[in-house]
């Protein structure tokens, strides 16, 4: 493989600016909304901060060693730039992150814990993270984890950021494990109802075959195979189904939520549940991804009612897009978990500078 990237990032002016902005906020007692590429501003609660901090300016790949399977980039680096760089070496971000309307950054992807359709098989962004650097609410620039595959020194502050929505600090740099691209891929389509699709996706996921995507929409089950050519072809002939043309466009549109289902303005609910939980609320407007572990429901519903249903299915529900964003949008935390969240917030951001109220009204 060609030479690795190792960029001289000795001029840390942009980093310094971020730290200074945090220090100013500390002095004035003001709050900051952290914005990367702005592609995920619809995620979380509607919450007003005094000023915006532009983490998207803090960008660039810092180092990339294809043979080590490790890439380090500033958190504001667009996913597209990272993916293009990896593709030149036949590698990829295995967690297949959504770009949404475009401009998504690596930092935002980790903060919002966003991974694409391959997530059950390839792991999530949180799984791929090896280490981070972070500016906390005291304006301290800290480093956690590392740039090697295994590191158990200290608490795993890096992975704890996944889903924290920036409430613990500004992520400035991320080191990730990257993976080789599969040699071949193919998508099979089968007609099937929702209840049957859940069972089928789980049954097939239990077979030692190169499954890398399983979703269901509009009465069709889509199975993506990825790996060595012979294994993909061998599995396809065993499993049967129609071969989907332009399959990568299909999975990209699903990943980025480009289909009208996701963005036509109706409230969009995301269930993260036991993949094998039997289908319920039949007849409602559902789509399944992640082999049944991520289920999308469209329409106006009572949050409390959906939370009970999610609980029965072994997981949680989030109001992902639209609807009432002034109230809580994420799953209700028990009193004990609220206490832990509050105390961690206190430990990282005692003056509550970052993204106040974005995750929960009480954070």
């Amino acid at each position: 493989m060609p030479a690795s990237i190792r960029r001289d990032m000795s001029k840390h002016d942009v980093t310094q600016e971020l730290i200074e902005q945090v220090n100013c906020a500390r002095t004035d007692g003001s709050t900051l909304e952290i914005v990367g590429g702005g592609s995920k501003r619809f995620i979380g609660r509607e919450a007003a901060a005094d000023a915006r901090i532009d983490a998207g300016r803090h960008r660039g790949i810092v180092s990339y060693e294809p043979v080590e399977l490790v890439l380090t980039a500033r958190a504001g680096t667009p996913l597209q730039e990272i993916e293009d760089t990896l593709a030149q070496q036949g590698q990829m971000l295995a967690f297949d992150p959504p770009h949404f309307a475009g401009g998504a950054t690596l930092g935002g992807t980790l903060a919002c814990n966003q991974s694409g359709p391959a997530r059950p098989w390839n792991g999530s962004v949180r799984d791929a993270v090896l280490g981070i650097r972070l500016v906390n609410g005291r304006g301290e620039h800290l480093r956690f984890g590392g740039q090697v595959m295994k590191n158990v020194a200290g608490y795993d502050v890096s992975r704890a950021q996944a889903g924290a929505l920036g409430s613990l600090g500004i992520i400035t740099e991320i080191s990730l494990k990257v993976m080789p691209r599969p040699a071949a891929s193919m998508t099979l389509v089968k007609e099937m109802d929702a209840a049957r699709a859940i069972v089928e996706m789980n049954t097939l996921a239990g077979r030692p075959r190169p499954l890398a995507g399983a979703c269901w929409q509009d009465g069709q089950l889509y199975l993506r195979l990825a790996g060595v050519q012979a294994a993909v072809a061998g599995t396809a002939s065993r499993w049967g189904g129609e071969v989907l043309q332009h399959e990568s466009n299909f999975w990209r549109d699903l990943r980025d939520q480009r289909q009208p289902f996701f963005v036509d303005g109706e409230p969009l609910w995301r269930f993260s549940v036991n993949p094998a939980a039997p289908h319920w609320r039949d007849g409602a407007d559902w789509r399944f991804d992640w082999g049944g572990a991520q289920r999308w429901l469209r329409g106006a519903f009572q949050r409390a009612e959906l939370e009970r249903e999610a609980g029965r299915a072994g997981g949680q529900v989030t109001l992902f897009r639209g609807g009432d964003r002034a109230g809580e949008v994420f799953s209700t935390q028990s009193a004990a978990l609220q206490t832990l969240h509050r105390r961690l917030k206190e430990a990282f951001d005692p003056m509550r500078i970052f993204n106040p109220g974005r995750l929960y009204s009480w954070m």
Partner: protein
Amino acid sequence: MVASHYFVLAEELTKEFRAFIDPEYVIVDAETQRPYECDGLSMYCAMPLIVLLPETVAQVQRAMQICHQRGVPVIPRGAGTGLSAGAMPREDAVVLSLAKFKHVLDIDPLARTARLQPGVRNLAISEAAAQYGLYYGPDPSSQIACTIGGNVAENSGGVHCLKYGLTVHNLLSVELVTVEGELVRLGSEGLDCAGIDLMALITGSEGLLGVITEVTVRLLPVPEQARVVMAAFDSVKAAGDAVSAVIAQGVIPAGLEMMDSHAIVAAEAFAKAGYPIDAQALLLCEVDGTVEEVADHITRIEQLFLSLGATLTRVSRDEDERALLWKGRKSAFPAVGRISPDYYCMDGTIPRGELAHVLTEMQHMSEHYGLRVANVFHAGDGNLHPLILFDASKPGEFDKAEEFGGRILELCVAVGGCITGEHGVGVEKLPQMSVQFSPLEIAQFHGVKAAFDPAGTLNPGKGIPVLKNCQEYRALDPGRGHVARQHPEGYEQA
């Protein structure tokens, strides 16, 4: 505090515990306590105040409440196979053993999950899942003995982690008893949860943040086939380059292990696996998956090794041969134990590209200290396990081994790696924490600890060093500490 104070405290606590825990499982006499005086790092030992073996989660909660009210430290313990003294007792503390929690609570073959009590042995999970064609990925070499609770507490890895991940990648949910005795559940049956990823913080927390009382893990389908290539090389450098070359081919092996000449000789004498004892380095590279995939990869890898100067290769033809080739690797620690009265196992991780450099440096250190070092390790993910050979009966020799070990870890940090890949910090690596982390980072770790354990009574004195001691360690030798790692901007504010 004085001894008589502990005596009184032990008496009072014993009475309280025996009111709700089988008196036999409230251990106070020194003889029965003896097996708990250390974990797998037996050079570090101390006697506890009391050893408790509760049998229900309610008992764990009650015991935690009592200790919390009295400010008595608690040390959670699994099988005691840890290698960093994480479960080492102290005279003022209660050792809370989860050994009675041995049940596999539930296996869901369709969802591919197993719900487990914390004392279930790692290997027992795969044994219970086998009837469904499933298994549990992380496979520490200690898997016949170590518990899933201990695995979560250490974020344990194993031979197959390059492809299948560490414990943290294979967990769905953890039930935890807090230091105050409250029961909380982290994670869910789904793949993620809202909010701060608390499960990530618990994984690898070495018993400092809570007592794990239930674990739900993800199971994987047993691959159709697995085959291993053994390749011998006449230099460590050639073997190290071959490791990188496999990855560069776009192949992620299920396992990629390396042994140096000391380890090869010891393992061959012990296991008779057919290793070439004149080789300087040996690689074991396993590929698994579909029959098609394995066929494709195994030939490519064997050809690659030969083209890179392998002096000998052997590919397993059946399961027996595969088991035999692995047998030497799996018994390498006890095998090395036979060529030396004692050995001390280190656990640094480095970028793979630094392998040859670090092994050569280690050889120089070995000469300097006059102690042999054997290397058996997870080459695929750069996780080194240097085994320093010494004789504990010779005065001062363990001290020398320990210093040597510390220097190896500092070298790992200096080349961009870290001080522990899977064994944890425990008591053992506290000094090196201040080489890997700045005082502000360590202070932030203390903040995390305080969020879970404000009074600091859960496994105190482990994992995260007291800041004052870091400064003292650095002061010992100005060449140590932050010079070893370039601290970029922001740090100057410390």
